[in-house]
């Protein structure tokens, strides 16, 4: 797979075309699976890791046209390319930073990725644009069935799918939605929402960038329990809370428009102004301002910017993407200058083409 080519596009899930995409960025499901006849990763030898990877590659190759992903040998990639795949959400940071034989298989639309030798032997992930957990579940269930027809997963009659960490045992499934909740943050209702979600054992976490500070008003909601509930129930559990959160966020946006239209308009216009004119800008600030602009676009306050352009900017202004696109390795200071240049180029007349 040509990573340079990949860098210029955005994944299917980032198009912002899915249901309720004014609030729900993406729906994601992952399954953790292990081969029955190899030790888990912490106890796997160098040759075990090689054989685990080969077992999956050979098995999937036998599926022919039923599943024909592109393979990337993560162990052979340079640090920048691994970082790039992390930004793209195709591999995890842990997978990028670990050592030994490991790889990832992805499809051209970037709807799924198969991580080999992460915390578990196999992590299947499906990403969908907007609120589409049902679609994600159908897709991942089908991929899981296909791979399972070729290999033997570690399975226990009572405990289900066996995983390296007991927090994943059973279904091995994590269901999550990434939400954009700027109005709940401004109106200070976000903590209340978190507390009520925690009570029904759902996890909430902020989206993190280069540092460890949550940014951009993006929040991920996911299930904590993996054992004792069926996959369909888990999809339902996470899916059930989304409509009311959608309603709270939309109501809070309406409230802001009604009660302080001028303040809100000022806020998003300033954000837009900085992004269009800055000469040097950090990824944190970019994320923060793009978040404001995204809300402004959804509320019709910045009619000249389209959602696809914005989504592309979220992805392309991340450190590794920026360097891949500019074709050279840049330190932080140079990245900030390049980022500002990129933003000016894509927002200057508000009608820039998206590829």
């Amino acid at each position: 797979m040509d990573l340079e080519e990949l860098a210029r596009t955005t994944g299917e899930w980032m198009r912002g075309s899915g249901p309720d995409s004014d609030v729900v960025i993406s729906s994601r499901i992952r399954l953790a699976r292990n081969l029955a006849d190899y030790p888990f990763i912490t106890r796997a030898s160098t040759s075990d890791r090689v054989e685990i990877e080969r077992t999956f590659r050979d098995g999937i190759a036998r599926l022919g046209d039923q599943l024909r992903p592109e393979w990337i040998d993560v162990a052979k990639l340079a640090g920048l390319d691994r970082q790039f795949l992390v930004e793209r959400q195709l591999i995890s940071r842990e997978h990028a930073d670990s050592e030994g034989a490991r790889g990832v298989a992805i499809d051209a639309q970037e709807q799924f990725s198969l991580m080999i030798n992460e915390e578990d032997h196999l992590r299947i992930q499906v990403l969908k644009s907007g609120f589409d957990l049902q679609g994600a579940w159908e897709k991942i269930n089908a991929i899981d069935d296909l791979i399972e027809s070729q290999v033997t997963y570690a399975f226990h009659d009572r405990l289900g799918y066996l995983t390296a960490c007991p927090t994943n045992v059973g279904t091995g499934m994590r269901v999550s939605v990434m939400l954009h909740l700027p109005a709940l943050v401004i109106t200070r209702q976000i903590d209340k929402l978190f507390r009520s979600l925690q009570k029904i054992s759902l996890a909430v976490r902020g989206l993190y960038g280069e540092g460890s500070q949550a940014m951009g008003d993006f929040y991920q909601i996911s299930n904590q329990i993996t054992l004792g509930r069926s996959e369909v129930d888990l999809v339902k559990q996470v899916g059930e809370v989304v409509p009311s959160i959608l309603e709270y966020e939309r109501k809070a946006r309406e409230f802001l428009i009604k009660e302080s239209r001028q303040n809100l308009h000022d806020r998003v216009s300033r954000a837009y102004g900085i992004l269009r004119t800055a000469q040097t800008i950090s990824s944190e600030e970019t994320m923060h301002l793009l978040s404001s602009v995204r809300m402004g676009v959804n509320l019709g306050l910045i009619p000249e910017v389209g959602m696809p352009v914005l989504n592309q900017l979220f992805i392309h202004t991340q450190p590794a993407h920026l360097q891949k696109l500019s074709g050279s390795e840049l330190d932080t200071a140079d990245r900030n200058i390049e980022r500002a240049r990129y933003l000016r180029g894509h927002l200057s007349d508000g009608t820039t083409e998206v590829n």
Partner: protein
Amino acid sequence: MKCQKCDKPATFHITELTGGKPKELHLCEDHAREYLAENDTGDEAAAAPSTDSVQQQLAMGQTVEQLAKLDKQACPVCGITFFDFRSKGRLGCSHDYVCFEKELEPLLVNIHGETAHVGKRPKSSPTDTDRLTDLIRLRKELKTAVSEEKYEEASRIRDEIRRLEKK
């Protein structure tokens, strides 16, 4: 053993993994509660159960003697001891779920509130794959035999592996 903060007996043994080096704490019930409450930090704790919380849950409510004995138990397949698991929060192979079944049960209840899977099952092996962990053990033995130049033994193990792989 006495609590590190008062004269009462230490009944809680906590391994804290947050700050780089693992930190061992031995506390009485009151101080353990206080400690765990203090370290329960808003958003972070809300994230999916971390290795740290696994540590804490495992170490609670066991005496030093019970823990010491438990820690030495090792899995016959991958060789991981319960102490290794306690300190890393990751198991070594799927047979650990069988050989540490009793020890893991309270932890699973704590995390999931349940102890039985009700979701999908692989069509090709819907019941149990534990017999296949023999292969893990045999491959390890094969490696040792080869490195010790015990070739007859190695060839015997290789046949055994082939036989199992064909099943």
